[in-house]
């Protein structure tokens, strides 16, 4: 995918969270965003997901300029799959219904068509036996896998992950990361905010280091990790790699 941001700014209560961000990535397939908490990486991802309106600036995805009116944003959101940290699923619906809801209501599937599509995806993710369970009856890892299944079912242009494993214990983390790795190997474009540096390194082809509302460094993931230029990134890597 092609992604280009021009002079993107956003502030909450006059505190800038995105500070005049510009970047041009003509051909990226797995973009990883790293950086300290509160540095603006989640806001950046949410803006690309169409969940935040920037105060100023432009966003170009695959040559298309995104308008920030509600109708365009809705259309944009329907074209991508987003997975959050936790609580993605609706607690009153079963795993299957969680997947069929957007298919039926936002993508024009008929009822049985949606069920069939959802069953195919659940089977692929080895979740068929859990189709009729409510989220509360699933483990945290299973819940995130259902959330990923829901994001994929709509055949999105690309996938966005906002720290999808930060609420999970290590064992469940790997079952979720495995799936993201698989999706990457299938050639799906994805954008991932993560704290797992090792995983970032294996999955990404491009990496952004975001801190204090700015993109401090941008480049191939190996280069950033082995030869950080800025003192911020050196410090950040020093901290997260220590243990």
């Amino acid at each position, binding site marked *: 995918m092609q992604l280009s941001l021009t002079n993107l700014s956003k502030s909450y209560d006059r505190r800038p969270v995105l500070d005049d961000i510009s970047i041009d990535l003509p051909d990226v397939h797995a973009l990883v965003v790293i950086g300290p908490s509160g540095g603006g990486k989640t806001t950046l991802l949410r803006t690309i*997901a169409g*969940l935040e309106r920037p105060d100023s600036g432009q966003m170009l995805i695959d040559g298309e300029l995104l308008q920030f009116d509600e109708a365009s944003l*809705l259309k944009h*959101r*329907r074209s991508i799959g*987003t997975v*959050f940290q*936790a*609580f*993605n*699923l*609706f*607690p*009153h619906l079963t795993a299957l219904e969680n997947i069929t*809801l*957007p298919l039926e*209501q*936002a*993508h024009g599937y008929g009822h049985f068509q949606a069920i069939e599509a959802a069953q195919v995806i659940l089977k692929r993710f080895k979740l068929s036996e859990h189709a009729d369970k*409510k989220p*509360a009856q699933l483990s945290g890892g299973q819940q995130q896998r259902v959330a990923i299944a*829901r994001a994929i079912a*709509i055949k999105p242009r690309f996938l966005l992950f906002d720290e999808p494993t930060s609420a999970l214990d290590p064992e469940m983390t790997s079952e979720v990361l495995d799936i993201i790795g698989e999706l990457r190997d299938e050639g799906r474009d994805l954008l991932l905010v993560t704290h797992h540096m090792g995983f970032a390194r294996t999955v990404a082809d491009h990496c952004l280091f975001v801190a204090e509302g700015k993109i401090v460094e941008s480049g191939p993931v190996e280069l950033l990790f082995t030869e950080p230029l800025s003192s911020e990134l050196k410090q950040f890597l020093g901290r997260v790699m220590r243990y």
Partner: protein
Amino acid sequence: MGRLMPVMWRQPDDGSDAPLISRIAAFAVVFLLVSALFWFAFSQLQYGWNWHAVWQYRQKFLQGWLVTVLISAAALILSLLISIFFALARRSRLLPLRYLAMLYVEVVRGTPLLVQILVFFYVVADAFGVSNRYAVGILTLALFAGAYLSEIIRAGIESVGESQLESAQAIGLTTFQTYRFVIIPQVVRRILPPLAGQFASLIKDSSLLSIIAVSEFTLNAQEINSFTFSTLESYLPLAVGYLLLTLPISLFSRYLEQKYRYAT
């Protein structure tokens, strides 16, 4: 204690799983104790019972009871509409609407229903030329219950977390679809039990409409009392009549609570 009464000794959380024999025994003990207490109290009474005089007015009891059922049902439906409006108004972006909702809730919950009924009937309704006491009674009762219901509904809406709304937005639902498929189904499940409880209160509260001469259950009992001078014989059936309505609702409310209990 546990050794003395092994059959009836249970931890608070597994009372419903106790064996049937334990539950029957425990209930029988309580029922007998309470009955004995009242049996003693009534036996001490120097009172000439005269059920015969009251029996002649059984039709009047029944009519009053039916009027109470109808008034309560009408007030319930109206109060639901009112409370939904004010629950949404409380969350409105329009500030005056929000303050109106707050004022309504605080004033209604902070004043006695008795005063509200009198003011509405003798002042407000009179000023607007409405003289139908049934209409005014139902409206006052609905406004009263609506204040409590709107707080229940508001709490229900707010209990649907921010992350749910965000997920709904992210999967491309419109605002209307978010209410239709995400918020309302969860709110309804959560508020049904307290809603049923509120309906039981509403039925009892309707007895106050007797002061503006709405011919409901309580007023009819009062009238029977003044015809027959048989006070207890008039008011004891009144208590039973209300219990016949409120007890099933209360049990139903508890059943709903069990049914919709799922962790979120």
